[in-house]
């Protein structure tokens, strides 16, 4: 038989063999392997919330502990896209934080603000579900009323 003819039948054999191999693998998955999907968001299992799905270091929405904030504005400066807005005002002798807005719709969760914070006032929460009807809702105002600025332990002041 010529080379052509040998190749003809070799092609048929190859096609059948490799197809059978592939189908064996898919059959294995079909009958044996269980699903690994998590049925987010409503069937996560008893007592589990979406926040349990993510790891310890997860970079979710930013949260603020106003009692720790010293108003150094470092996070505001570190933010590459200016999504943090802080206002520190002097009322009488005390310095007050009057505004601490984080626009989560702009935030890219890079973590630079959390890193530079000297007191750990601004941290990540595990919350990641940001869907809402109005994008303005995502601009989170962390302070409802002015809070006096925490005294930094170190003397070094920014303002």
């Amino acid at each position: 038989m010529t080379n052509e003819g040998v190749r003809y039948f070799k092609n048929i054999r190859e096609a059948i063999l490799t197809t059978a191999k592939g189908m064996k693998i898919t059959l294995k998955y079909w009958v044996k392997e269980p699903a690994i999907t998590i049925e987010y968001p409503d069937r996560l299992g008893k007592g589990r919330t979406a926040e349990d799905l993510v790891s310890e270091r997860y970079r979710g929405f930013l949260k603020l502990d106003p009692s720790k904030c010293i108003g150094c504005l470092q996070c505001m400066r570190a933010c590459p896209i200016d999504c943090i807005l802080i206002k520190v005002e002097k009322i009488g002798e005390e310095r007050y934080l009057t505004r601490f807005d984080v626009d989560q719709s702009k935030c890219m969760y890079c973590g630079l603000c959390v890193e530079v914070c000297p007191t750990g006032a601004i941290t990540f929460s595990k919350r990641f579900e940001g869907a809402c009807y109005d994008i303005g809702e995502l601009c989170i105002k962390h302070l409802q009323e002015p809070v006096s600025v925490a005294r930094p332990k170190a003397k070094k002041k920014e303002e």
Partner: protein
Amino acid sequence: MHSLAGIIYDFLVARFGRSDLLDPLFGLAGYLIPCFVVLGVVSTISGLLTYFERKVSADIQNRIGPNRVGPYGIFQFVVDGIKLFLKEDIIPDAADKFLFRLAPYIVFSSTILAAIVIPFGGPFIIADLNIGLIFIIVVSSLVVVGFLMSGWASNNKWALLGGIRSAAQIISYEIPAAFSLLTVVLIAGTFSMQEIVMKQGPWPWNWFLFHNPFTFIAFFIFVISGLAEINRLPFDFPEAESELVSGYNTEYSGMRFGVFFLAEFANIFVSASIAAAVFLGGGNIGLDPYKSGIVYQLLMVLVFFAKVLTLCLVTIWVRWSLPRLRIDQMMSMCWKYFIPISFSCLGLTAVWLLIFNGNGIFWRISG
């Protein structure tokens, strides 16, 4: 008359008496009632197949698949259908509106048409035509008209490419499919579907699949060309979504798209039923389909559907295992491999029948 139409006709005549006025009506009813029943059954089964497709693909891919609507999500296809009905039906401005509207129905009806001669087991066959197999071959190539029509009428280049691809593909693969069916006709000596089923037996060694080595090959050729004719992966060129966006149905939306979708799955069912009836003994359980009791007749239906469902699942399984061929490779596969092989199968079966006096390879046990 050995068919459902005949049975219903006889029943109506027995019930209301024979008269010249009512006779044509009874005849019409005899055909129309089973037609509507079969239409409903085939549509439901195609819907169920979409469910199976999603579920099987999910299982293969470590996913869960539909599981919300009904037990195990089995009514998902109903909800999908309702959704498609509620969707906006968009007809492009530049489309040929008449052909655009017509195309889905041509595709669907030419698919369903083949169901007329499918023996669903027992006496359940709408019309036992004496040219049944030829009817199937003829009707199933009508789909091309619909595909081409939709591709052309959409006035979209991707759709046009899809339509032309489907024409080239379906017409090419008609030939090996027809030849492999003809091997069986040689053995059975008839084109009538019901008789082909009755010539086989309940056990695997009675099936035409194992009649001789060549029918065995012919079966696989038929199944694979069947895949090509119904545009399933690895031959889904007309709608190759990564190449042609969505092929001939790119511009379709709403229920018009749904009809295409349904036709595709109805096609799987029809193709699998032909394979099951012709090669795998259909609903034959070794009893006369017309003279046995209703329980046995239903058992025949059950056997038939079990075989069909298995074949359908294999079709789905193949789809989720293989990549797509290229159009020229698909063509060369048809013209260089399938047509010569199916042709030689036909010839060699004839030789076999001549040498072994019409007996199969298992003739000792199958008697």
